[in-house]
């Protein structure tokens, strides 16, 4: 009875995601192969992390435009630190992201600048810092340390027993092989989403995030720590963007100061597709994850479709198709969700 009030958030995106998976699995050979699944997960975990931060920001009614260029900057930072090992690279990159997030948060909370403007400024600044640090080139990471295992490895690979896997494995074998070959960045994203779900639903912080987005003045009058909540949300977004940057460097073997362009829009799209209100106050972490997967899968499906040789759509089409999906899902969502008058 209590759950009857779960709003339509997430239903639309889940349906659309299932639809894509079923169509893909039916239409393309190898679409549901463990190789393909793992590749999709590995590649999209960066976006999942960035979108998670964005989800929290948007739930407070804000926006973070800086995530893409912050990720680009931290990829450079972590690439420079990669010779010292995995941990320094990881921590350095995340710390750089946290700094950017703290800066956004500070500007928004203390200087009372609108999030759009504040994070636009940080976006430009972070982009500049990345380019300056990298001297306008990509910065190769060290392959001597274990740094690349973060983006390219699979956490549990070495624990995989010999009997798992093989070409003629049954479903159990496939599942186990998926488990042992689950990409390290996807583990990171998974943990982040689990932690975020707990944070949102079972910790005061999460409730405060939604409360601030649902009515900032009301929250202030209720005595909620609104400034702290808003600050933490941007800090979190910066940290997650930093982590995504580290994965970027590690996965592609270089710090990429010019990567990350448009990531913020991808993240915003994922969050919105997941049914989170752009004006704040209502949202879902898991639906955001579904949104990331949906938009990510469209790219994969396009590749498979091209591979069949019937048509040849350039990568530019993926933007058009993503846009169309975004619209359809959001429309679906608003039909399914019960309106709540403010």
């Amino acid at each position, binding site marked *: *009875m*209590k759950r009857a009030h779960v709003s339509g958030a997430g239903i639309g995106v889940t349906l659309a995601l299932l639809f894509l998976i079923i169509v893909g699995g039916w239409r393309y050979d190898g679409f549901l192969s463990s190789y393909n699944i793992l590749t999709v997960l590995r590649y999209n975990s960066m976006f999942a992390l960035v979108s998670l931060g964005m989800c929290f920001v948007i739930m407070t009614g804000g926006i973070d435009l800086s995530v893409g260029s912050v990720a680009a900057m931290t990829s450079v930072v972590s690439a420079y630190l990669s010779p010292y090992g995995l941990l320094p690279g990881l921590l350095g990159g995340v710390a750089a992201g946290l700094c950017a997030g703290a800066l956004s948060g500070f500007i928004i909370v203390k200087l009372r600048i609108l999030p759009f403007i504040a994070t636009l400024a940080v976006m430009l600044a972070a982009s500049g810092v990345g380019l300056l640090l990298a001297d306008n080139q990509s910065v190769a990471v060290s392959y001597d340390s274990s740094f690349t295992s973060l983006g390219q490895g699979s956490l549990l690979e070495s624990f995989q027993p010999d009997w798992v896997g093989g070409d003629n494995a049954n479903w159990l074998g496939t599942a186990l092989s998926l488990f042992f070959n689950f990409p390290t960045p996807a583990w990171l994203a998974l943990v982040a989403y689990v932690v975020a779900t707990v944070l949102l639903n079972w*910790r005061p912080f999460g*409730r405060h995030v939604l*409360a601030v987005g649902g*009515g900032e003045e009301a929250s202030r*009058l209720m*005595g*909620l720590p609104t400034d702290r909540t808003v600050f933490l949300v941007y800090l979190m977004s910066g940290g997650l963007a930093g982590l995504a940057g580290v994965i970027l460097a590690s996965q592609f073997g270089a710090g990429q100061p010019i990567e990350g362009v448009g990531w913020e829009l991808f993240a915003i799209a994922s969050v919105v597709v997941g049914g989170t209100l752009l004006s704040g106050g209502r949202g879902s972490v898991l639906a955001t994850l579904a949104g990331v997967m949906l938009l990510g899968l469209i790219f994969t499906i396009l590749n498979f479709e091209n591979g069949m040789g019937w048509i040849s759509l350039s990568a530019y089409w993926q933007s058009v198709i993503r846009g169309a999906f975004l619209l359809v899902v959001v429309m679906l969502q608003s039909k399914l969700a019960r309106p709540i008058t*403010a």
Partner: protein
Amino acid sequence: MASHPLLSMQAIDKRFGVVPALRASFLEVEEGEVMALIGENGAGKSTMIKVLNGFCQKDAGEITFDGRPWQAASPQEAQRNGISTIFQEINLIPFRTITENIYLGRELKHRGGFLAWRRMHEGARRLLEAFGVDIDVGAPLGQFSTAIQQMVAIARAISFEAKLVIMDESTSSLDEQEVQVLFQTIRRLKAQGVAVVFVSHKLDELYAVCDRVTVMRDGKTVAVASMAEMDKLRLVATMLGRDLAEVRRQGATAFSEAARPPGAELLSVDSIAVSPKVKEASVSVRAGEIVGLAGLLGSGRTETARAIFGAEPHQAGRISFEGKPQHFADPRQAIAAGLGFCSEDRKHEGIIPRMSVRENMTLALLPALARSGIVNEREQRRIVLRFIKDIGIKCASAEQPIRELSGGNQQKVLLARWLCMNPKLLILDEPTRGIDVGATSEIQKLVRRLANDGLGVLMISSEIEEILEGADRIFILRDGRTVGQMSRADASEATLMAAMAHGSGDAAPHGGEH
């Protein structure tokens, strides 16, 4: 040792810029006492409350609470230390559940810091049960009526175990029954030794529930008396700073000027249905007549009015205006035909806060003022100045942002917005809600004057007195149906209340069986 009052505010000064808002004013409240705090808008009662609950800081004066010097840096701190405020605007979060709205900021937690949802739901349910409200506390607050939301706000404030609760216009969105429930709550609080400062413009409420009254005017405390010693007319006179005899002559509301005989039928609404609330509503208005639309909150008054104005589609029934059947698809058509509508929600559906008085007033008129897309500013200015003078809008200039005006003056600007279009019928939804006594009487006077000039007025009001004294005819709605019609002569407080509550209006029901 002599017993000290629970709260004592002495010689409080407060300035905003150069404008003094409080001048040596005082307020004392005893333990378990319900103290009315009244005064016109701008008299300083809101400032007094804000100084007390930490919303702003006093410039001078002394406050002691519960035997100790009192200083609150914020409403939150005040709340933690025993003074809870229920603000006029409901300051809750519609998207969040009722439980959250009660527990936000001091959530119950398991060991380890995880939220104890079950205990919170349980607690919220028990709190509301004490108010006679039995609802699903896991549902988003926004799904419920304003009255329930108000109850939740009160439940939240009280659950802080306050020693003093400030209720700032808490009843303005409640209907009669709900007000009674609130009063019971106040009495229960009183029995527990909790003191209440009760701010209301509705004088009857003060007499129903308050022990003493503190009257403020022009930033000063001008009188403190027990309610029993202070009759209503004296109270109004003290508040307005006017001669008692003069107030006595004018009556309690300002509709008293005699009505002229009404003209031809202007509007006729026959059994319209507006989903989901209105099932069978009928109303008629003649030119030069003020028609009251009475009913409890939720009886479908506003929805009926909105349907007449074309702001909401109606599913059944007929509307005719000036003898011709009409079906306004949107307000534009209704406005073109000569209707005007003043919404009850001034803040959201009426004013545009940052725009000037001039702009707010002429928004709807702009198309008529423009020739080939250019607004005739001279004409615009002339109209604006005429109305400012005509209906006595108090503003620094026509260019002053409307949000800086008092509620009463904002309402006058909105009235002027419609009047400058020369409407034939004006629908007023709660025209005096949240407006102080002085401005209320000015607006009531104005409405009567307009009607005497031939304007038809359909007035919705929750104030029984306003309907009784103001309306020439009264239609009563109950649960979305017109259950009765009374002329001014037939109507009394008792008959009207009975009709609103039970639908047993003495006069002929609609539909023409008689």
